[in-house]
């Protein structure tokens, strides 16, 4: 069966009667008086004896012109040879599972858009021919395959029944490209794309192998399209919460909005939104905040997933410090006063316990307790040296005077001018590796060093803090703060705190951690195997706060829809009426082959033939 993708182009067939009309037009004749027309009559009779061929050629020329016009018109109409692919054809079923398919059904659907989409998909499975194969995939933020090419109807139905809509923004183009790549080279294979049509028109509806079935209608929605916290520039403890609410309907809405942080209500405000209006609320906050926050709007609309949004603050700034010390008031006070620093103190050192605990901490501090040989990690050594370092202790130095201060960024802002030390270790440098920095020193010995090796960062203080005035000076907290900042580089951020639904989240973990359990917002525990200190959490299709433990500490990351386009649940994509596989006519599983190239070549051939005839025509002047 031949179908036309551009049937309006058949209007070009009007050129056929036009050509016939032009061909039948008589030229205006000029009158010429001759002495006698007898000879002309005889010549005309002579010519008419060979007129059969002439007339045939003339008629043939007209026929060829008509054929050319016909072929060109048909070619412009983009004809496709559509065959029922009842036997042996493969198909890919692409089901839209983006957030908009959760929308409450408007009019035509009894429950939700998604249930209608699934019914349509089930119909396609039922209509499959005996030996046809079907692959089911979903289209969310990323396309996902749920089956291979299967002929088992029951299995396909089970897989379909298990599918649920996600909170993800839809990216149908990526899914369709993947689907087309799966059937590449199979002329009769088809892709069935079932969607609510609530996406921007960025896909090529002219692709003949795709059967579009867009079933959405209606839909009004008010959505949180942005929820975030940001620090104020130049301020350590002031930050702002941003909340954007968008009214996608054509009617005004009054929306009560709340923001809570760790069950503390930060905002309770009613927002008046005009039709189509988008309003942003900025909420200034002060203090040290950590945990996860939730924004909600109380509105009765067709899509509920975007009526909440989540954000995680502060948790990523947390620094876990394991302190081995017999007791150091000043050091513990300084560490405890630092924002986000979580100190765990051990007064005695046990190797097995150290090996179990240390990987869960960002920094390990040895204060006057001898450490074991150090592997990868961040360390602060005070009045002690670990084996295997490029320096060692050889005796002590009484009342050393600080005679020099290095140019390292670590020590540069620290003023050591009035620091006095009663006794210091005599440090002997075995060699000077490139990563070793002198921080400050006396004429007799090194007083503080920093070492940057491949997997190790280390700060060494060569004297007992209690035997010096250093903890009493303002330089001490500054030095400790700078040391901790230097020891913990930026890449130690464990995970992003915010992620769009469906986007994989990568979490960095201690190297010895073998697995990670992630709790989804619904409470389901997902266990991931750690590879090379990293885990990629890909099951983020549900909006909410995800929890996991790292270094015995509860961590969070938030997943939100917050997508302007997805929250606009009004069906916007329109299938051109001429599409060969529009929903109205795509009841049967069909394969289409474009015929326009054939038409074009035939038209060119006819044109060449006509040109050849014109050149060859006898008596051409």
């Amino acid at each position, binding site marked *: 069966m031949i179908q036309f993708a551009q049937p309006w182009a058949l209007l070009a067939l009007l050129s056929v009667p036009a050509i016939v009309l032009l061909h039948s037009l008589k*030229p205006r004749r000029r009158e010429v008086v001759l002495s006698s027309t007898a000879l002309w009559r005889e*010549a005309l009779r*002579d010519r008419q004896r060979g007129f059969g061929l002439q007339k045939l050629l003339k008629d043939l020329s007209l026929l060829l012109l008509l054929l050319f016009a016909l072929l060109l018109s048909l070619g412009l109409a983009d004809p496709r040879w559509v065959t029922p692919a009842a036997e042996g054809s493969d198909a890919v079923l692409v089901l839209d599972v983006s957030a908009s398919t959760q929308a409450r059904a408007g009019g035509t659907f009894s429950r939700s858009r998604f249930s209608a989409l699934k019914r349509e998909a089930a119909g396609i499975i039922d209509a499959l021919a005996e030996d046809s194969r079907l692959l089911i995939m979903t289209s969310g933020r990323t396309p996902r395959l749920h089956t291979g090419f299967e002929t088992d109807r029951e299995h396909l139905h089970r897989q379909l029944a298990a599918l649920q809509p996600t909170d993800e923004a839809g990216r149908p183009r990526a899914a369709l490209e993947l689907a087309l790549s799966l059937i590449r080279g199979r002329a009769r294979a088809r892709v069935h794309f079932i969607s609510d049509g609530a996406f921007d028109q960025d896909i090529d509806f002219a692709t003949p192998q795709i059967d579009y079935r867009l079933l959405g209608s209606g839909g009004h929605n008010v959505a949180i399209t942005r929820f975030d916290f940001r620090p104020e520039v130049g301020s350590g403890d002031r930050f702002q919460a941003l909340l954007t609410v968008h009214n996608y309907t054509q009617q005004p809405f009054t929306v009560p909005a709340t923001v809570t942080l760790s069950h503390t209500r930060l905002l309770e405000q009613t927002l008046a939104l005009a039709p189509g209006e988008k309003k942003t609320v900025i909420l200034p906050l002060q203090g040290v905040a950590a945990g996860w926050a939730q924004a909600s709007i109380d509105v009765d609309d067709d899509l509920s997933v975007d009526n909440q949004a989540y954000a995680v603050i502060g948790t990523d700034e947390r620094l876990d410090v394991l302190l081995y010390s017999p007791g150091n008031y000043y050091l513990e006070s300084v560490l405890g006063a630092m924002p986000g620093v979580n100190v765990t103190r051990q007064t005695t050192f046990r190797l097995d316990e150290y090996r179990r605990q240390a990987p869960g901490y960002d920094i390990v501090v040895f204060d006057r307790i001898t450490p074991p040989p150090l592997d990868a990690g961040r360390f602060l050594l005070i009045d002690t040296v670990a084996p295997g370092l490029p320096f060692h202790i050889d005796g002590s130095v009484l009342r050393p005077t600080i005679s020099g201060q290095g140019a390292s960024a670590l020590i540069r802002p620290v003023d050591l001018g009035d620091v006095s030390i009663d006794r210091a270790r005599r440090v002997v440098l075995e060699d000077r590796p490139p990563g070793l920095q002198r921080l400050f020193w006396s004429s007799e010995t090194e007083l503080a060093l920093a070492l940057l090796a491949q997997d190790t960062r280390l700060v060494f203080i060569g004297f007992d803090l209690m035997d010096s005035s250093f903890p009493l000076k303002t330089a001490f907290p500054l030095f400790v703060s700078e040391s901790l900042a230097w020891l913990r580089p930026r890449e130690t951020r464990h995970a992003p705190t915010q992620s769009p639904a469906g986007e994989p989240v990568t979490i960095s973990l201690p190297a010895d951690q073998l697995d990670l359990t992630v709790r989804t917002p619904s409470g389901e525990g997902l266990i991931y195997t750690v590879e090379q200190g990293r885990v990629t959490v890909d099951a983020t299709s549900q909006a909410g706060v995800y929890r996991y433990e790292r270094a015995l500490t509860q961590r969070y990351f938030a997943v939100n829809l917050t997508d302007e386009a997805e929250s606009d649940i009004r069906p916007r994509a329109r299938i051109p009426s001429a599409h060969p596989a529009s929903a109205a006519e795509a009841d049967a599983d069909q394969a289409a082959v474009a015929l326009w190239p054939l038409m074009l070549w035939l038209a060119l051939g006819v044109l060449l033939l006509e040109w050849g005839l014109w050149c060859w025509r006898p*008596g051409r002047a």
Partner: protein
Amino acid sequence: MGSRSPGDGISVSAALDETALLFDTAFLRKLERLEVLAGKLFRGLIRGEHVTPRRGHGLEFADFRRYRPGDDLRYIDWNIFARLDQLFVKLYASDEDLTLHVLLDASASMNFGTPRKFDYARRLAAALAYIGLSNLDRVGLAVFSETLDATLPPLKTRHQITALLDFLSVQPAGGRTDLTRALQAFASRNPNRGLVVVISDLLGGDGAQSGLDALRYSGHDLMVVQLLAEQEIAPPLDGALNLVDAEDGSVLKVTVDATLRELYQQRLDGVLADMEQYCRRAGCEYLRASTAVPFEDVVLKYLRQGRFWR
């Protein structure tokens, strides 16, 4: 060239001042020049001593020819019949004065061409008549189309050239051509044998040969001048045309292209060849003339090459 004839000193130009524009002064000067040239050609001949190809019943035996029905049985040579068992008649040189009849086609087809064939033909006729009169022959004129339209009885002297030119000047061209009827009518009205010069385009129908036959059978010596316009020899026609026949007004719708022009040319060549072949077969003089060639050149060529005027 002077304005006087070399013969009797009469100024033709002066005598014909009042003639129509057709025969203007320039034309008359050409006639005088032709007279001089013709005079050289006729040098030494006297009136009544033409050795004409026409055979008659004089005293001097000239020739034999095969018997044709209608011949006088008295001139059959029975001796030859006895020897060859075939009939031959004896021919005798005529001693009669030569009468020159110029028959001019004045049908509508002669109105065609640039210059008009009819004008050209009239000048040609005038020239031949003038030369004939200059050689002491009798010269008659007749104009025909469907039939004989007008005749001028034979003139005897060159002084009568004015009447001849006047006669030619007033003749119109029009009507259809019926050569058979016209030439038969002429033959019946002019039983005296002579030399008949037919000036026509011979395009007016199929009766040319039967008409000429009628003249021939009446004993006239015959000369045919087929006059064509250059536009008839190489018609400059192309495209979609309504061709109107000048004689009957019929219209022929035709698209002229190279093919049709070639077919026309073949047809014309065939018609001309047929006429030439007929004349050769019938013992007639045939001269094909184009209006593109000056008429005096035609006359001189004719006088030099024709067997009647040597």
